[in-house]
């Protein structure tokens, strides 16, 4: 019997080692798998490469990982926010490497990895400093920049509901990067508000099919609506 459910967050992240690349879902705080990140911090590993849209907000989640100096490099689109003080401090102290990627290119490169593509040609960034040194091609009169896929050893994502085969449904704008990161990581770990019986998720509404998910852990608080902004 295949059962991908794990007893707790610590067990779910137990295979993550020093130096791992880890995609983390979430846009701002929506969809941020806070309890999985806390478990990763408790596990004590460092030298991580983190892929997330932002570089942490406030004190929880990615911000806490940076505060604890576990992150060697971050790949993100928008690191500068009013409450991103832990990233600011680490960056100014030269303790963290930043690869800045336009948000749509970030999504497309993650999706390309999950789909097994060798590279993509994207119009975004053409003629800007973020395309400097990159191969450019003109196709049907329009200019495109060559960008390579972004894959990772692990993805930590948050969904509303899952089952023991790893099928997932998300909640509102907490979906964001979850479905594409699940496809791009060798091992995807999903924290879900509740694990339901096989067959109780309508197959017509499954967003991430279980083939893309290796671990599921139920964290009841994941359904909390009143998260701080």
């Amino acid at each position: 019997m295949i059962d991908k459910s794990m007893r707790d967050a610590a067990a779910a992240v137990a295979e993550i080692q020093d130096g791992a690349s880890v995609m983390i879902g979430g846009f701002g705080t929506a969809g941020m798998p806070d309890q999985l990140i806390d478990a990763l911090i408790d596990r004590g590993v460092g030298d991580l490469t983190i892929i997330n849209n932002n570089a942490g907000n406030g004190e929880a989640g990615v911000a806490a990982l940076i505060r604890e100096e576990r992150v060697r490099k971050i790949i993100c689109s928008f690191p500068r926010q009013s409450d991103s003080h832990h990233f600011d401090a680490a960056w100014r102290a030269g303790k963290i490497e930043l690869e800045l990627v336009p948000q749509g290119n970030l999504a497309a490169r993650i999706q390309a990895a999950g789909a097994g593509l060798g590279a993509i040609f994207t119009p975004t960034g053409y003629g800007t400093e973020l395309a400097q040194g990159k191969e450019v091609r003109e196709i049907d009169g329009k200019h495109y920049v060559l960008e390579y896929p972004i894959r990772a050893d692990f993805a930590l994502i948050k969904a509303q509901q899952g089952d023991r085969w790893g099928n997932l449904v998300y909640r509102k704008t907490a979906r964001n990067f979850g479905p594409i990161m699940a496809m791009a990581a060798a091992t995807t770990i999903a924290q879900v508000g509740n694990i339901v019986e096989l067959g109780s998720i309508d197959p017509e509404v499954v967003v991430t099919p279980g083939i893309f998910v290796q671990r599921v852990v139920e964290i009841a608080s994941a359904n909390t609506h009143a998260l701080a902004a």
Partner: protein
Amino acid sequence: MNRMTRDQMAARVAQDIPEGAYVNLGIGLPTKVANYLPQERDIFLQSENGLLGMGPAPAAGDEDWELINAGKQAVTLLAGGSFFHHADSFAMMRGGHLDICVLGAFQVSVHGDLANWHTGEPGAIPAVGGAMDLAIGAKQTFVMMDLLTKQGTSKLVDVCTYPLTGLGCVSRVYSDLAVFDVGPGGATVIEMVEGLTIEELCRLTGVRLAHAGETEAA
């Protein structure tokens, strides 16, 4: 000199958004446009973090922090709205499905180049977000900005000196003093605030301006 207020600018942009348009309003000043969209028009607001059919902010106390916009503010979803993941969201832009995006700017060139993501100052942390994808992806990119900086320097320029967001992507500029079309043929003044002349506008901006329906002023 007369100047349009930020709300007047937002109302002016809203006039030009037609029934049935799929629209992304950028963070900051452009979000004000939503307040002036005519009730009788069905206009679909997209937010790049994965929703279409975005509604106004909820009442205080009704916030759901898993229902937010790209500025990470709590919003609502209108009947008929939908959620989707990030790759689909940016395919809506890059794939040419989004009709209009409205963005703020540091500078716009008379040929429609946009600079709005980074001042390039040493020590400034660069952050691009979805700006580059929006600018080049939407069928039409409108910019909303004050025409002059606080120091009186024109933000409508011959060539952008700030780091570029996209090349030749802006089609129209709504400023506090005038509305311009920009593009391969240069800048054309569509309208001006009362009391302003084309000569004065040329002096303020220092760029060559054509006047819609009239001969070009140097």
